[in-house]
């Protein structure tokens, strides 16, 4: 690796101002000096609306832990969009994401991904991972929330006879239930893995008002470390139930007793968007300033009025001297009215206004 680096440094004398990778990309698109990429090796349709995408990452990727996620960049009509997806493959195996069609980006991934396509990547991260020391586990999942848990089960069950996992998975119908056959086979084959499938169309939503329903499926739930992943509402309910139970029996809730803990993975926190016309609180992170802005004032002016050293140029959207990274939130292009909010996106502050709360890296 180090020798490769040296060779690249030597070659860059000849390729400057470009990098050797820029030229290698002519022959293999995985090469880039700026952006980690992967090539899609296989696409497996899971249900009508979901698919698993296997890929071979380029240099700069590191092996994932079971339960982690990665940011994936996809191009929609020439524009790059980034989303986070849980890795569903077992730790130590080639990475794969399982995507369910829920919007423009995931829809494109599910429908249009073919082997040989390029995915833009960021290395895996996240702390929704297995405990360091073996202990009995209870997994509560709903819908595509099974994805990170599937990686955990695939990692643990076939390899660790001492594992003890109960999975309660909720989905609308058997046809929409991800990994149904594989899970059933694992439950058949390994006595240390118990599976309860819950179908909401038939059984209604799981009742989280008390522990009753969970207790029926898993009587020793309070001795287990619990993991939950699914839609917002599902997680909020589970969290409320665990909090309430912990309050009722404080002795059972301590980490030392080993039970009654709940670890939660949220897929997304919806951004407060408003209708995009009413502005919002603008936070300039590095400058440590907060200002309330209306929806018509360019962020450049908002920043300058707050005394932030904003890069600026033409003030009319042509010169791109004012580009500033957006950390979170949505901005509206004052020229087109278009609202966008990709974290990391460079925005032209002279023609962008706040559409809800905005965080800028300056």
């Amino acid at each position, binding site marked *: 690796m180090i020798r490769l680096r040296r060779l690249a440094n030597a070659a860059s004398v000849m390729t400057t101002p470009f990098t050797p990778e820029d030229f290698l990309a002519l022959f293999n698109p995985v090469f880039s000096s700026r952006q980690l990429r992967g090539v899609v090796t296989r696409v497996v349709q899971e249900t009508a609306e979901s698919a698993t995408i296997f890929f071979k990452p380029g240099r700069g990727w590191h092996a994932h832990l079971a339960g982690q996620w990665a940011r994936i960049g996809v191009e929609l009509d*020439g524009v790059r969009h980034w989303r986070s997806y849980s890795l569903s493959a077992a730790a130590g195996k080639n990475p794969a994401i399982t995507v369910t069609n829920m919007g423009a980006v995931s829809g494109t991934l599910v429908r249009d991904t073919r082997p040989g396509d390029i995915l833009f990547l960021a290395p895996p991260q996240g702390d929704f991972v297995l405990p360091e020391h073996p202990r009995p586990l209870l997994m509560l999942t709903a819908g595509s929330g099974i994805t990170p848990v599937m990686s955990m089960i695939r990692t643990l069950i076939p390899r660790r006879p001492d594992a003890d996992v109960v999975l309660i998975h909720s989905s609308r119908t058997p046809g929409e239930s991800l990994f149904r056959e594989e899970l059933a086979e694992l439950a058949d084959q390994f006595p240390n893995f118990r599976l309860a499938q819950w179908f909401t169309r038939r059984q209604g939503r799981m009742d989280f008002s008390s522990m009753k329903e969970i207790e029926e499926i898993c009587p020793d739930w309070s001795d287990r470390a619990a993991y939950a992943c699914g839609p917002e509402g599902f997680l909020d309910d589970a969290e409320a139930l665990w909090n309430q139970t912990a309050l009722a029996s404080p002795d059972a809730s301590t980490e030392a007793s080993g039970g009654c803990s709940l670890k939660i993975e949220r897929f997304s926190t919806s951004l407060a968007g408003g209708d995009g016309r009413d502005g919002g609180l603008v936070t300039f992170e590095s400058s440590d300033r907060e200002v309330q802005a209306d929806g018509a004032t360019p962020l450049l002016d908002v920043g300058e009025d707050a005394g932030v050293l904003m890069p600026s140029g033409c003030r009319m959207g042509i010169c791109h001297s004012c580009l500033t990274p957006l950390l979170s939130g949505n901005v509206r292009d004052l020229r087109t009215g278009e609202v966008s909010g990709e974290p990391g996106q460079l925005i032209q502050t002279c023609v962008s206004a706040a559409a809800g709360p905005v965080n800028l890296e300056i």
Partner: protein
Amino acid sequence: MSVTTTSRPAAAGTTKPRPGALADSGSPLVRPPAAAHLTDEQVAELGRELDAIRDDILSKRGASDAAYIRRMVKIQRGLELSGRAALLVSKNKGAWVAGTTLLSLSKIMASMELGHNILHGQWDWMRDPDIHSTTWEWDFVTPARSWQHTHNDLHHRWTNVVGKDRDVGYNLLRMDPDQEWKPFNLGNPIYNALLAPVFEWGIALYDLEIPEYKEGLKSKEAMLKDLKSLGRKVVTQFTKDYAATPALAMLTGSGKQALVGTLTANAVRNVWAHAVIFCGHFPEGTDTFTEEMVEGETRGDWYVRQMIGSANISGSKFMHLMTGNLSHQIEHHLFPDLPSNRYAEVAPRVREICQRYGLKYTTGPLLKQVGSSWAKVFKLALPGKPA
């Protein structure tokens, strides 16, 4: 302030005037003579029509444009790789001719269709860090960031305003009769002829903004920073073309030929870039402006100034590509950050608008335009205002 799909931000809140922000309505202190026949309402309407063209292109911009620029990047890299490889064995005459030609084409594309346009932010909308105005560096001596300041900001904002846009003569040539004549200007044609083959070095020097520094408009820290980044760029560019390539070619006994090859390729690119860029604002028919003409300028007036201050070059598709689509200078100045592959499509609509509003739309074949800008270089070497 109401915001519709075509409105532009004006000085927000108007609590304090901001440099460069355009007025919401009204007219400049003096409207340029070529547009003096237009009323405020007509200029505002013209502005709306041009905004509509821009919005139309933005709504179409997408995967095909992304594919276009990626194709251009690939072609340029292919030319660069094969050209330099051929020069490594350039003891062979055929290899020398092929290598020098390919490398010249590569350098022309790298500085114009790729460098100039990517550094304008024409492809920033793709959000691809590999093709972005903030990450791109080009095969041209002046560092990308320095050039972006003098070009994208100063030149494009103040196009042809004598005293504000220093691109009017680059602090070296007398290119407008309103610029005071000094005996130094007698050398105008000689300076220009000497400038052409080393154009990139001239631009590098120009981007240092030495007059601004002397006038106290540029800080010492900024100057040192610019000097440092220029120094680094000079070393890497020089090493690549005049040391590493010939050194490697020495293995086949082609060292000297390779050096002549890289020198030639750089000179070819410089002469070509110089010719194309001089066709942008100097040929007969392009207007220059006074500071009164931009005082209180609206969006519409700004558009008018871009159109009557720029000139196109007519020619084949290949010629347009080789000029980095700067042959569509008028369209580029109206919409500096629209993708270059869209200018040809916009041109007939812009031309029609000019016709309807009685504004000139200057264009002509390359040789005619080059001749015309050279004529100006000669004429303005002498004092006074030529007819």
